[in-house]
Every structure is written in structure tokens, then in C-alpha cells.
């Protein structure tokens, strides 16, 4: 693999006593769409701001294209940022906003106007070029903000929760716009968000952060199916988490004794010692529901508590032994056939290879 575009080496950022980013090491590759995800205060925005030069790392190294960037001022970088607030200049028109960066670079007026109009056209908002940005709609502003950054022809575009202010329909549309743009331009996108759906829908790789640490790096599928630790498991998706102690390790997998019974999980790369505390996850959509006791290695009995519909997918919440909550995701159509009502007792089961051992417990 070629030299990464960006490398973080043991980067730490403190604000007085508060550690925003702790000992971060991360490579970002040319042309990838990287999402950094986490709840507020996890350090994701600080990471992005360090990339843009708006914060200087307290220790460690940040390199872009091999160059040490720790003390390079923001305006000497080529890292345009699409702001959460959009930060469009309210006293300028859409076109003037887009021209701003070119003007700072000292480009001749005619040339920068041409480029700005090109980009506005590409974003399909050329009709609003001479309008004051304050009069534009949310989606239009978003496109101006994108055009303003992209007109700089950067190697890397930084995006800080750019879609958080838009309504749901628009978010889906803009996701399409963003992924298409990224593919067409072939440049690196570093996308900070707290929204799992945005990150998983668009990113090649996702970085999950928690309290200044990287919790997991991986493709959306990796993270979804195999959360590395409890934090990720709880943060991402509909995971059922069970904890217990390692029993005997037979040929068919790892045996784990939990209050809900003994389960078999597929053998992880590093085998925990017998008697060790261990947790594992099972994705809600990989749990099978049956009214009668199924022929399965891993099964529990549970009672339906409630249901939650999102589109055609329904999430069922069950209570198992020891008041443990189970989640099961299925198509609404499949649910209708089962004819459940709250209080119904059912069997839940899953395959051993769908049980994913967490690195921590």
C-alpha cells in the first residue's frame, strides 16, 4: 500500500485538564472516504480541527503528505472544511462565498468567477449565484458550502457534521450527492458525524471514538457485525450483549456460561482462558424467532415487551432470564405471520458463528 495521505502518530490534545484526544495513531489514505463517529465530546471534532490546523496537538505528530503539520497555520494548509454551521459569509452572495478561497489565494477576478460559477452549476444552484446566502434554503446553503470548499481543488475535504441541520429527506439526498462527488473527484473525504446511518451509508472506513480514544477502526460491515468492544457494541446498531465466564473450549467453539444459560460462540483468534469473564454480541437481525423450541445451539426463552417500527423493519424488545433485554430485528411482513402480542413467550436462537466475542468485557 502506498504512503498514507495523513498520519496521526501518538497525537494528544489537551484543553487545560481536559483530554480531548488521547494518544491517537491513525492513517488516512489517499482517496478514501473516512468517517469519524462518536457521541458529542468524544474528540472527533477536535481531530478534524487538528487536521485543519484550527487546533495544534499538545503532543505527537500529524503529517499530511509526509509533511509535519503540527505548527502549520490554517491558511497555509489545503484542507477546506465544510462546517457544521456551514459558516457561510452572510454579507456575501453565493458566488462571492464560493470565490472567497480563490480570492484569498490572489486569483484574478475573472478566473475565480468562472470557477465559482462552474461549481455552482455543478451543484445545480447556478440560479442562485447572485443571491445573498441568507436568503437560500438549507439544502442550497449546503451546496454553496460544498462548492466553496471544493472549488479549492483540495486533495482532502473535511466535513464536520455537515448534514446535521437538514431534515431527513434532504439528508438522504445529500448523502447521495456526497458519495457521488467523492467517487468522481477521487479525493479523500474525512467526515465527522454522530450519525451511524450517515457514516455507514457513505464511508469506506469508520473510526469510532470514545472519550478521546479510538474505540474501533474498520469498514462499516466489520464494525456492524463484529464490534470490537462493549462501547462499540452498545453505540452501533441493535446488538444483544451477553456476559459470562468461559467454560470448556470444545471443538465447536467457545462455551460461555451466562445467567441466561450456556452458549457457544465461534472461536476468536486469541482464546481466553477458562474461567475468564467474557462478553459477546449477537446482532438483532441475526436472531431467529420461533414460537416453539427450535433445534439450535444457542437459544433462550423470552417475553415480548414492545415493538418499534422504522419503515418496513420492526425491532422487537424481549425480556429474558435475569431481566436481560433482547432485541430482534425482522421484516414487518414476517412479524405479521407470527401474530405476537405483548406478553407472548417465544424462543430466540442464533448461530454460533454469529456470536462475536468482545475484546473487553
Amino acid at each position, binding site marked *: 500500500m502506498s504512503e498514507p495521505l495523513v498520519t496521526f502518530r501518538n497525537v494528544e490534545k489537551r484543553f487545560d485538564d481536559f483530554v480531548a484526544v488521547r494518544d491517537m495513531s491513525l492513517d488516512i489514505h489517499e482517496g478514501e472516504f473516512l468517517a469519524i463517529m462518536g457521541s458529542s465530546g468524544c474528540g472527533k471534532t477536535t481531530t478534524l480541527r487538528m487536521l*485543519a*490546523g*484550527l487546533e495544534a496537538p499538545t503532543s505527537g505528530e500529524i503529517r499530511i503528505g509526509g509533511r509535519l503539520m503540527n505548527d502549520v*497555520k*490554517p*491558511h497555509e494548509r489545503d*484542507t*477546506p*472544511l465544510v*462546517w*457544521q*454551521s456551514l*459558516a457561510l*459569509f*452572510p*454579507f*456575501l452572495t453565493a458566488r462571492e462565498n464560493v470565490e*472567497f*478561497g480563490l*480570492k*484569498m*489565494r490572489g486569483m484574478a477576478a475573472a478566473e475565480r468567477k468562472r470557477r465559482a460559477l462552474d461549481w455552482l452549476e455543478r451543484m445545480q444552484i447556478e440560479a442562485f449565484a447572485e443571491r445573498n446566502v441568507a436568503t437560500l434554503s438549507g439544502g442550497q446553503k449546503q451546496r454553496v458550502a460544498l462548492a*466553496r*470548499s471544493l472549488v*479549492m481543488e483540495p486533495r482532502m475535504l473535511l466535513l464536520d457534521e455537515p448534514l446535521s441541520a437538514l431534515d431527513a429527506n434532504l439528508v438522504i439526498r445529500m448523502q447521495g450527492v456526497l458519495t457521488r462527488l467523492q467517487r468522481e473527484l477521487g479525493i479523500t473525504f474525512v467526515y465527522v458525524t454522530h450519525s451511524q446511518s450517515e457514516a455507514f451509508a457513505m464511508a469506506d472506513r469508520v473510526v469510532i471514538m470514545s472519550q478521546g480514544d479510538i474505540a474501533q477502526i474498520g469498514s462499516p460491515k466489520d464494525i456492524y457485525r463484529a464490534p470490537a468492544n462493549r462501547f462499540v457494541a452498545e453505540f452501533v446498531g441493535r446488538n444483544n450483549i451477553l456476559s459470562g465466564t468461559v467454560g470448556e473450549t470444545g471443538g465447536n467453539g467457545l462455551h460461555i456460561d451466562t445467567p441466561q444459560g450456556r452458549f457457544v460462540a465461534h472461536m476468536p483468534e486469541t482464546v481466553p482462558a477458562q474461567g475468564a469473564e467474557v462478553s459477546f454480541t449477537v446482532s438483532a437481525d441475526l436472531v431467529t424467532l420461533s414460537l416453539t423450541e427450535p433445534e439450535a445451539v444457542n437459544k433462550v426463552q423470552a417475553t415480548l415487551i414492545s415493538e418499534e417500527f422504522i419503515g418496513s423493519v420492526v425491532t422487537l424488545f424481549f425480556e429474558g432470564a435475569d431481566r436481560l433485554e433482547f432485541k430482534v430485528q425482522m421484516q414487518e411482513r414476517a412479524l405479521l405471520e407470527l401474530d405476537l402480542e405483548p406478553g407472548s413467550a417465544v424462543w430466540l436462537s442464533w448461530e454460533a458463528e454469529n456470536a462475536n466475542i468482545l475484546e473487553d468485557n
Partner: protein
Amino acid sequence: MMGRGLNIFLGLYVGLIFAFVFAPILFSLVFSLNSQRFPTIPLGEFTLEWYVQIWNDEDVWQAVRNSVIVSSSTAVLATFLGFCTAYSDFRYNFRFKGPYLALILLPPTIPLIIMALAMLAWLSRIGLSGQLWSIILAHSVLTAPFAMALIRLRLHQMDPDLEAAAWNLGGSEWQAMRHVIVPFCAPAIVSALCLTAAISFDEFAVSWFVSGLNKTVPIVILEIVQGNIDPTVNAIGTFVFLTSMTLVILAQVIFIGRQIKSHS
């Protein structure tokens, strides 16, 4: 029932308050057009005599010129100082920020007569008294807080990312100042210019102490009131009123207008 009666009473009361506040202003206007030297009721004849008198008075014109120089220079200086402070407060956190802000915000709480005394003693000590720009120096200290307050309010309305966005797009801090902060604050800067100019244009106590032989309009008014009182005071007052009002209305239209717009 009671509410209605109360409303009528309150309406009258508010009217009375406004009558009190505007009586001296309106009477001054009436007196300035009245032939009597010591006006009373019934009023004398309508006359423009007092206006003709000040129109023909070279000293008044000189004072107007001085006042224009003083108030415009004060406005520029005070607005610059106010802008610097407002921006520093907005942008930076630093040790001793409290004393720093107190340094600029304190002067208006000190009575003008004390400022006048201290200013004259100090300025004559360092050899800067008795000049037209002595007034400008003193007024800049007195009015800068007002400029600071207006501009700080405006900066408060600014998305703090805006400045960083300008850096992010390749603008240096200076360029960001020139192309983002200043344009964004423009309405407040204009308002501050108008407001500080208006305050300076009307200030007499400090001016009177430090001006030496240079007279501004309020000093001429003070001298007429102290000396040979006559209704030219009212004529000058009406003129000052119109000048100040023009500035204030400009400031209101520009600043308040924007504020309402940006809120809606």
C-alpha cells in the same frame, strides 16, 4: 371595568412623562423662533433673528468647524479603540482580561467634572492641553466604551466559525479581519461612529476644561449661558439637536434595522 380606567390613567401618565422629557426640547425650539429675549406667555412674534445672528457669527461657525473636527476624529479613534477591545474580548481569553475590560469600560462611571479635572491636570502636565486634539484625546477615552459595547454586541451575533472558515479557505488572520470580521461588523462600526460622534458633539464639561482657547459648539453654548444669555442658545441647540438626531437616526436605521432583520 377597572382595567379600562387603569389603562386610561396609565396612558395619561406615560403622556405626562413624555411631556416632561420633551418640554425642554420643544420649548427650546419655540423660543428659538420667538422674538422675546426672556420668553413667556403670551409668546412674542415669530422671528428668525436668532438664527440670522448665529448664521452671521464667525465664532459660531468656527465652533461648528471645531466640533465637526473633534467629533469626527473622536468617532474614528474611539471606534477603532472600541473595535480592538471588542475583538480581543471576542477572540481571545487571557489573563487579566477583567482588568483589561475594566480599563476601557470604567470611564463613563466617573463624573465628567472629575474626568475634566484629571484630564486637564494630566494633559497640561505632559504638555498636551489647550489644543483641539486635547479634546479629541479626552473624548476618545470617554466614548470608546460605547463603541466597544455596540461592536461587541454585533460580534456576539457572529458565528465564531466564520473567522476560522476564512483561515480555512486560505486567508491569513489579517485577510480574515479585512474580508470577514470588518464586513460583518460594518453596521455596528457605522453605528459606533455615529454614536460616539454624537456624544462627543454634545460633551461640554471635559471640552471646556481641556480646550484652552479652542471652542466647540457646547462650549459656545456654555459661554452664552454663563455670559450674555440670549435665545441664540436655543437656535444653536436646535441646530445641534438636528445634527445629533441625524446621526442617531442613521445609526438606528443601520444597526437596529439590521438587528431586526437578522432576528426575523
